[in-house]
């Protein structure tokens, strides 16, 4: 047990220091998004949604077919779960006026206005008329 401890302690200590340095190097947006960096096709849609949707507002997440360049983790459940977490206290609601569109079928929202768009990643924030 002492041999194992003598072997593992320096490694674990070095790993902890390495993680601390890596965490310190993150910029504020990377740190705020955390796991979202692995799930979302682009950081901007999360930050834009936080800025545009009022805190007492509601939103829906609509995810279409995977686009080139998207992470393998960008599947509908993961994207919806992540946005639910990241945008709290804004609540998810399938009938919400705000639509977070990840390559979604925009013809499903004929009256929606595009309030923000990132064409290369097929991302948009749509707003239905109230």
């Amino acid at each position, binding site marked *: 047990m002492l041999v194992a401890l003598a072997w593992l302690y320096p490694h674990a200590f070095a*790993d902890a220091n390495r*993680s601390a340095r890596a965490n310190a190097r993150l910029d504020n947006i990377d740190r705020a998004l*955390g*796991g979202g960096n692995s799930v979302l096709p682009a950081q901007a849609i999360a930050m834009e949604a936080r800025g545009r949707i009022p805190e007492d507002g509601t939103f829906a997440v609509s995810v279409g077919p995977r686009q080139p360049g998207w992470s393998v983790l960008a599947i509908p459940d993961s994207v919806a779960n992540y946005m639910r977490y990241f945008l709290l206290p804004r609540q998810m609601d399938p009938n919400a006026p705000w639509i977070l569109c990840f390559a979604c079928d925009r013809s499903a929202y004929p009256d929606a206005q595009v309030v923000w768009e990132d064409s290369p990643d097929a991302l948009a924030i749509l707003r239905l008329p109230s």
Partner: protein
Amino acid sequence: MTVRALAGLAALNVAYAVVGLSLLWAALAFRTWGGLLRLAGLGYLLGLAAFGVLWTALLVAGVPFGVVVVVLSLVVLTAAGLVAGRLRGAGFDGARPCLGAGPILLVSAASVALAGMFLEALFRTARLSSLQEYDAWAFWVPKGLAIFFFDGLDVHVFTTTPNATYPPLQPVLDAAAFHAMGGPDVVTLHVQFWLLVVGAVAAAAGLLHRHAPSWLLWPPLLLVLVVPRFGERLLAPQADVLLQVLVVVAALLVALWLRDRGDWRLAAAAVLLAAGANTKREGILLAASVLAAGFVFSRPRWWPRLAAASVFVAVTVLPWRIWAGRHDIGAGAPSSPFGNGRLRGALDLSFEVLYSNARWSVLPVVATIALGAALVWGDRRLAGYLALLGLLFFAGGVWSTAGFPELAINADEGGNPIVRYTGSMIFLAAVALPLLLTSVWRAGEDP
């Protein structure tokens, strides 16, 4: 991450420790500064557990989770402990603690320094960590945020996030941390989990201090902190480490209660087990295992006390089950593992994960050998209790894998939580080793 957030979090955690120590004082667990210092870690865990159990019930009852009420609840818990202590005649002797001297003190000092250095490095990791783990952002932290933002069990969040069956004790602690930090700071939240690790080490060391010499106490405790799988996940804002700490420290208290029948140990274990049962689904299974092993290895005349502890744990589980049932959330228990053809695969998997050198280093192997040695040469009641407890924990893991057909029969953590579950057995091995080895060592010293 700000100094204000860190200071708020520190104040909240000191408050947990004050609550727990007042409850321990009321239970006549200590009456000197030395005793207080030795039980400070346990006091912290006990305060956190009591707060979590109380607020789980209060949230179900519809009490809003605001700053004032949270502070009031901490004050009331502390006052209850102090008043009960007064009524029970608990005293306090202000004599200075005696640290001892000689080589043993040197071993303790060196070990505390090694633990401190590693924990300091973990603190620097924790204070700027981003929220990476899937389970953390998919449901644990959102539930905490929901309690923080909406002052209660928001039906939408608590019924639509994944794993809706999990009780809300961990989210309650997250929400309290957000209030203490002055906002929903999910980065500084990692420091709350760091404090839990510090509390767990202090609790285990403090409880074992009088029952094992330093040179047998510290190596397993240090090793469990740095074994690959345990060390990597200590700071993840999920309920796994909390559950392991609560259940294993409770198991240690029951083991010591079997030796000295100190009622305060069983009372503290009951509160920790109640918190464990309100932390995750498997918490009920693990708490029941601890109590069942306690029944088997105690004399019948001690059973009424164990029965009272069991009833207390069962009653504290009810509020969440009532809320969950009212909102059509199932119990989430596995089906029978017999007849579905998965039992053998689940057994092999649990065994392979438990004795994985790459994950846990030599801890499970050394613990198994120590258990065998203690059964032959040492304290047979202690060894029997720990062996049965280990078997029940192991059987619980097999049952989970076999009973949930949707779980893959492999150790990939995305498809089966068996590795996380096994963490309880590894932490149990680490805190049991000093007791087992000491019982064998002291048996050899007998004339």
